[in-house]
């Protein structure tokens, strides 16, 4: 089936070569980082994780959100997701690939990555994160590929696939729960030391992932002969609506706990992120942009009239996606490190090489996504042409 990615229009190849060029530039900067060390980034002794780990955390959520299609389709027999569930599964594959690349980009000694396997440490949450991420990648490749192949041959998916599909549901929850535990179990980082962290992660993931999927579905409809359909997009829109409300509510719970208790350490990170601390606050405009975008998205999504208008829905999804990207891809990580354990403020801002490497990894993710979507959509298009579309 992969050969379907090797034939395409001029526009398709243009996009592929554009991505390859971006990846190339990112790789050149990565080689510089490889030679010089992570000192090339904006990270420091006080803020020792930054943009890379933020992207990893955010994208784990995007990957986990495929379950928002798998659950309705396979558990509740919501047939309308039949055509697009593959788009969710392949989005998960691309997102997990990016997660792994961001981990590699963030390692001080990437050549020693096999130490994770050679000296496994089951007490470390990172050990479990590696297991669940690799497992989830494998599950989605196997499930996505086999359902698509069965679909192409117009036969039901093999029976051995069913248990894997059911397994993928708790597994998706686990990848984001375990990732939240990377942060939630640390003493002395009050911003992260919160039992609701995993729930917050899942809520924001189930908003950001499906929001991205709606945008992708609309792009697919515009560029190809395959129409994911109005109803699945609307159903996804409702999922985004509930999830972003839950996510915002959970953030509100954190704010209440910090500010009603008035414990200084619990308030400090919020103060730094949203108001600035000790006279500095590089992230303040970003955090308020995130808040405003979330409010705008909620208003547009809650109102059925605006949600049903696909242009407005697309706008709301872009707003939700950017809002959650800022919140989780930047604020959540940096906020955990500021102020430092001595109640001193050291600021962080990504450097140019760090940003270019990050864009490069996103481009790799988009390339994986494009190739997988090209295969899936070619099969759909062939079905449409032969008039044998069973869904």
């Amino acid at each position, binding site marked *: 089936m992969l050969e379907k990615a090797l034939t395409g229009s001029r526009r398709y190849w243009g996009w592929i070569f554009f991505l390859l060029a971006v990846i190339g530039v990112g790789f050149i900067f990565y080689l510089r980082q490889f030679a010089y060390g992570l000192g090339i980034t904006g990270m420091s002794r006080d803020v*020792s994780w930054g943009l890379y780990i933020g992207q990893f955390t955010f994208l784990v959520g995007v990957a986990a959100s495929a379950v928002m299609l798998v659950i309705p389709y396979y558990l509740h027999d919501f047939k309308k997701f039949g055509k697009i569930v593959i788009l969710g599964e392949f989005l998960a594959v691309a997102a997990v690939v990016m997660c792994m690349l961001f981990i590699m980009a963030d390692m001080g*000694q990437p050549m020693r990555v096999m130490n994770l396997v050679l*000296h496994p440490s089951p*007490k470390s949450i990172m050990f479990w994160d590696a297991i669940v991420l690799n497992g989830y990648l494998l599950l989605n490749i196997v499930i996505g590929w086999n359902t698509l192949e069965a679909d192409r041959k117009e036969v039901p998916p093999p029976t051995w696939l069913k248990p894997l599909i059911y397994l993928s549901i708790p597994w998706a929850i686990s990848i984001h729960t375990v990732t939240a535990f990377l942060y939630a179990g640390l003493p*002395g980082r009050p911003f992260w030391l919160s039992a609701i962290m995993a729930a917050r992660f899942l809520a924001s993931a189930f908003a950001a992932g499906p929001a991205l999927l709606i945008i992708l579905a609309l792009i697919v409809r515009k560029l190809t002969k395959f129409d994911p359909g109005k109803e699945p997009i609307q159903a996804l829109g409702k999922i985004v609506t509930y999830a972003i409300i839950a996510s915002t509510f959970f953030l509100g719970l954190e704010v209440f706990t910090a500010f009603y208790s008035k414990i200084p350490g619990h308030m400090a990170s919020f103060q730094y992120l949203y108001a600035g601390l000790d006279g500095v606050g590089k992230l303040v405009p970003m955090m308020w942009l995130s808040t405003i975008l979330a409010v705008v998205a909620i208003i547009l999504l809650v109102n059925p009239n605006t949600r049903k208008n696909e242009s407005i829905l697309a706008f709301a999804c872009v707003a939700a996606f950017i809002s959650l990207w800022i919140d989780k891809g930047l604020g959540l990580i940096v906020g955990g*490190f500021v102020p430092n354990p001595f*109640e001193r403020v050291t600021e962080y801002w990504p450097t140019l090489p760090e940003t270019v490497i990050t864009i490069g990894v996103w481009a790799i993710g988009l390339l994986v996504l494009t190739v997988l979507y090209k295969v899936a959509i070619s099969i759909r298009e062939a079905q449409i042409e032969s008039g044998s579309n069973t869904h």
Partner: protein
Amino acid sequence: MSISRRDFLKLAGISSLGIGFSATDLLWKNRAEAVEYMSSPKGLTAKRWAMVVDLRKFKTEEDYKRVIDACHYIHNVPDFGNLKDEVKWIWTDTFEHVFPFQKNEYLPEGVQEKKAVLFCNHCDNPPCVRVCPTQATFKRKDGIVAQDYHRCIGCRFCMAACPFGSRSFNWRDPRPFIKRLYPKFPTRTKGVVEKCNFCVERLAKGLGPKCVEVSNGGLIFGDLSDPESEVRKILSKHYSLRRKAELGTRPSVFYIIGGDEDA
């Protein structure tokens, strides 16, 4: 595709089984331990090493500088001269920043601004050891939390986990920034974490930590499990503080703050 899906799945299944078996093997059988200094017959041993910082003995800037310089020299700690790349094993900060949970604006005059010496706390219950995915950070039988520079993958999870800001990362090659090379201790490479090791390399030779040696009695080192040890004696006579004791990591570094009249 030159390899059929069935063959691929078979292959994938077999190889993942293989990985699974070899991982369990390593996990339960030939466990490779991270590097420790071998103790020689004349080496100092203890059940639980601990340090007491007697801040009454630190009076001038020189008193702090002496211990810092001595430690950083014999451990080849680089000096980058900027905050972003900073690596440090022992340093100072003021009372209010060292003990942020002991906020009290009515403390005796000068205590708030009084500096305290800081280094790794060698916790009984170290979060850094718990989170390390490769056991590059490990706790020795004598309680010292040690770091294997050759096993560290540079993920910096331990830095996020340490509530005491005791760990440094080599953001770039440290070697050009070592002012005066001390040939008897290894230098580090870029991309690994490092920190105070209670001078395990000196303990193995029967010597106490270097900072203790040059501290003029400001730092006291000994076995916490021995009631006759110097550390136990001084702790039994004076009120002492541990940093962030409420987090339950049980640091093995104790601070005596007040003057003799408070004893």
